[in-house]
């Protein structure tokens, strides 16, 4: 006997146990590898900071790489573990499209913080002098 709640779901995703286990195993391995790579880059950044004069651009590039790896991890968690990838396309869009707001959200607010810093450094010499890290 089927429960009324099941009538809402007219198409069932049938995955046999073997395929499912393989998919979960592969995703777990992938997430672990991505995390280990992130940690390796993190340690690399740490060692660069310890050095005499870290190449700021290189540090920024490594940080960007970690951000991209994190987005990849997020993608696999959402699409495989949360099964969003198996849902109907229109449903996926109702989740993903609003999240596009984050593109503006992140860019605008980071830009704002940076601009505030620049203005303050430009017009408040004492602030700049007292807060700028000295090179060791």
């Amino acid at each position, binding site marked *: 006997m089927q429960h009324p709640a099941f009538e*809402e779901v007219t198409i069932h995703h049938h995955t046999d146990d073997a395929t499912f286990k393989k998919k979960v195993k592969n995703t777990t391995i992938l997430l672990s590898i991505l995390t280990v790579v992130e940690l390796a880059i993190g*340690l690399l950044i740490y060692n660069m900071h310890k050095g005499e004069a870290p190449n700021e651009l290189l540090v920024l590039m490594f940080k960007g790489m970690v951000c991209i790896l994190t987005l990849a991890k997020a993608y696999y968690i959402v699409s495989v573990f949360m099964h969003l990838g198996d849902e109907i396309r229109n449903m996926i869009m109702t989740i993903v499209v609003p999240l596009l707001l984050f593109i503006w959200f992140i860019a605008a607010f980071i830009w704002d913080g940076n601009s505030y810093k620049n203005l303050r450094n430009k017009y408040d010499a004492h602030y700049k002098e007292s807060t700028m890290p000295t090179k060791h």
Partner: protein
Amino acid sequence: MATTAAVQQTKWWTGGKSPFNLEYGKLMMWYFLMSDAFTFGAFLISYGTIRFSQNFWPDPNVVFNAFPGAGHANLPLAFVSVMTFILIISSVTMVLAVHAGHNNDKQGVIKWLFWTIVGGAAFLGCQAWEWHHLITGKHAILVNGQLDIVGQTTRINPWGDLASQADIATAIQNTPRETLVRLAEMGGHGHEGAAHTNFAALSNADLIKAIDVEGLHIRENGPVAFGGYFYGITGFHGFHVFSGVIINIIMLIMTQKDVFARRGHYLMIEKTGLYWHFVDLVWVFVFLCFYLI
């Protein structure tokens, strides 16, 4: 008409059927999680704004370098990677619990939910240790022209720029005697015998000589916002983990009592599963923003 044809040509938007082929509760869980993503996103972006507005921000590898039982060993990223893997593994056990639910396998659901709860509790334990370590930490800093010993709180951040030796030499003269005694007792690295000396009996001048200024790595105070953002955001995430553990425990009890077996489906496990994976998802970003970059 054959039923196979009806399934093949279902027009989802003509009414009478769920347009998204989803149970209502599960769809609403998705929308709740989307709104929660914006809440966390707003917190993290606000942290980013403040961080970009500062000339100096502490290096996370200097702040988070401790490991339980490892004393003062410098182990950047070690403990947080343990926490991250605990959460990934508990996410995997949750996937297995949901899958067992699909197969109406009660014992499977119980087994995997149990391990998910264990993982969640372990993560919370790690976070409790980390907070305790940060709050009760003793760090020598130079603040307001004198030396002080502080932990990481929402009021002060001990991880500013390294203080110059000239500034320290001036500040140490203005430091209250009580603090000087504690600084001497801290000793610094490679100063193991320090605890046996009765520093309270020394004169101020001798105390200043006894303090291992080099070994203490005295810093200026860092940006105050660091503590509020760190405790606020990891606390809000920890609260999600905590409520996730509670929800999972309730699901475990309901499974045990055959509530879902009588219903004929384990859709509730899918919904709690979505919540649990979201908690893992948020951690991925917290990990990125606070520990990696």
